[in-house]
């Protein structure tokens, strides 16, 4: 089976472009041009150069010795936490801003939940001197005030989304409405492998630099390109798509996806989309989606704002239903514990999103000589307040 997107924009039965006709010209323009533009030598040169000099790539592949000893297996961490701005999100915003420029767009819009994608977008807009507008749920603006301040310092305008539940899904709705109303000059930088085709594939390609590097780095360290497992947390699924990308069609590499169980799968306060979702349409994509029996989109919950999305990218919906990926959900408590553990065993304070991935070692037993590459998608600075409140630090 092929786990990449097909020529119609689907991953199995998931994906497509369920968009209002108003957006058709822009999404179609993107669909027709994204492969060609991103393949151009001048694009690749500029993209690679910025990833190297500005983002700080390649990020290290770090053998976590003490963590490995504790769980009696071989754990490598892909250090996306060391990217400029503190998470993998910037790989994608660099790619998309270069594309936006080549399409002649002058005004950039984005949605953000925790603020990481908003910061990554504001950053590249400052870099390129483009106007930047970030939609953020009114509730998230209150919860994530340091990131709001960062975006403002970077020159972005942060507009509160006051509709619906006032969180990430509503910020995304507002960004899409802005795009409908400003088609000609505006480019929408989506922050994950979600939205209408070609966004999921395009974002996955920009993030695929992660597994491209892992292959080379693992060859150096272990004399093999392929680990036994790749592991990542999944909100929309972009850091996961990045670390899976070059292993998708290699069945020898196991794929482990970690979702946020929140207060527990059955608690009514969860973001474990694969378990709790049904096929539906969100933000232009047919995918697994948390919703009422009547088809209204419900509000997810996780202690980690970056995993707090009611849908999941169509690639991941397909990995789940086809059985290619193993999906695990981790509660708030187990994630927080794993975050503290990594801090104390390795001296690395992870983002709470990444802490969810780290918590799997308490859930799954690996063989002693298994090689596991876990995507450490971001650093914990942005989450310090949550850690402080949780652990009464």
């Amino acid at each position: 089976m092929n786990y990449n997107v097909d020529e119609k924009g689907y991953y199995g039965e998931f994906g497509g472009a369920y968009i209002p006709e108003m957006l058709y010209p822009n999404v179609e323009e993107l669909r027709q041009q994204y492969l060609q533009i991103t393949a151009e030598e001048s694009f690749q040169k500029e993209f690679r150069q910025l990833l190297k000099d500005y983002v700080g790539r390649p990020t290290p592949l770090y053998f976590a010795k003490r963590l490995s000893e504790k769980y009696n297996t071989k754990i490598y961490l892909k250090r996306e936490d060391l990217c400029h701005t503190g998470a993998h999100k910037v790989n994608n915003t660099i790619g998309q801003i270069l594309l936006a420029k080549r399409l002649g767009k002058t005004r950039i819009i984005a949605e953000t939940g925790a603020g990481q994608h908003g910061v990554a977008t504001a950053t590249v807009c400052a870099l390129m001197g483009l106007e930047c507008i970030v939609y953020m749920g009114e509730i998230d603006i209150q919860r994530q005030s340091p990131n709001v301040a960062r975006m403002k310092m970077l020159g972005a305008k942060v507009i509160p989304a006051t509709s619906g539940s006032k969180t990430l899904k509503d910020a995304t709705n507002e960004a899409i409405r802005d795009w409908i109303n400003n088609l000609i000059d505006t480019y929408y930088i989506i922050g994950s492998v979600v939205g209408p085709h070609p966004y999921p594939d395009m974002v996955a390609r920009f993030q695929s630099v992660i597994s491209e590097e892992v292959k080379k780095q693992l060859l150096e360290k272990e004399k093999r390109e392929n680990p036994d497992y790749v592991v990542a947390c999944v909100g929309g699924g972009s850091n996961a798509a990045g670390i899976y990308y070059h292993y998708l069609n290699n069945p020898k590499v196991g794929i482990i996806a970690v979702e946020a169980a929140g207060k527990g799968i059955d608690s009514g306060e969860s973001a474990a989309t694969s378990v709790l979702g049904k096929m539906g349409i969100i933000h232009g994509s047919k995918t697994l989606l948390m919703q009422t029996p009547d088809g209204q989109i419900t509000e997810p919950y996780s202690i980690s704002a970056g995993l707090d999305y009611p849908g999941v990218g169509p690639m991941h919906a397909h990995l789940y239903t086809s059985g290619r990926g193993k999906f695990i959900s981790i509660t708030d408590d187990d994630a927080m514990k794993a975050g503290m553990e990594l801090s104390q065993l390795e001296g690395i304070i992870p983002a709470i999103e990444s802490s969810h991935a780290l918590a799997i070692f308490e859930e799954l037993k690996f063989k002693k000589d298994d090689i596991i590459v876990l995507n450490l998608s971001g650093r914990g600075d942005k989450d310090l307040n949550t850690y402080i409140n949780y652990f009464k630090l």
Partner: protein
Amino acid sequence: MNRLQKTLQQDKKLLSIYFTAGYPNLNNTVSIIQELEKNGVDFIEIGLPFSDPLADGPTIQTSSTHALKNGMNTALLFDQLKDIRKTVQIPLIIMGYFNPILQYGVEEFCKKCQEIGIDALILPDLPLEEYNTLYKATFEKYNLSNIFLITPQTSTKRIKEIDSSSSAFIYMVSSASTTGTQNDFSAKQTDYFERISKLKLKNPQIVGFGISNYETFLSTISYAKGAIIGSAFIKMISKEGIAGISSFIKSIRNS
């Protein structure tokens, strides 16, 4: 030929009203429809509320949120409408987003529409390609017309494709925007109306988005077969209720 196709053949300009089912009150659906028919509205769009109405501006968003809070859902709407054809003759269209229909089951939904006497569907987030490959056969089995939107940015080539896939009318969105009200139309918009009317499409065009009063209604019907009023009607009904319908319609028709 269904009711809608017959209405579109009448030799007059048509006025259609959109309202959100379940707003302002949960159980007003039938009374609103009857009152609209009584006041000479030619066909009606019944809005099935959705939690995340992407193509809508603040007025319809707010009415949808309220309707859902009031308890509106697909099964309830069908229940409210089950005897509607005993009293109402004009064409009825359901306008909504695709996800609630997907959950209800596309085939079940279409079947139910036919039983009740719904003539067409407008689903802004079900585009031409996905409709043609996945759902067209089901819509046709139950004799439902699917209404597509076009905008000032839609290419002539695509308008022609949409025309050939349509079986009732083309929903001509007045500007590249979300729903909302405008006080008058710009020269750019009337140029667009004129450009489309010159294409001599097989399906008549009905203009929607931004029509709010006699002036905007009048300027659209000089180019198109008719017009749809949504947000302006919702604003009116949220203040005046069903009692305000008669004078609202009179003000649009200037009669």
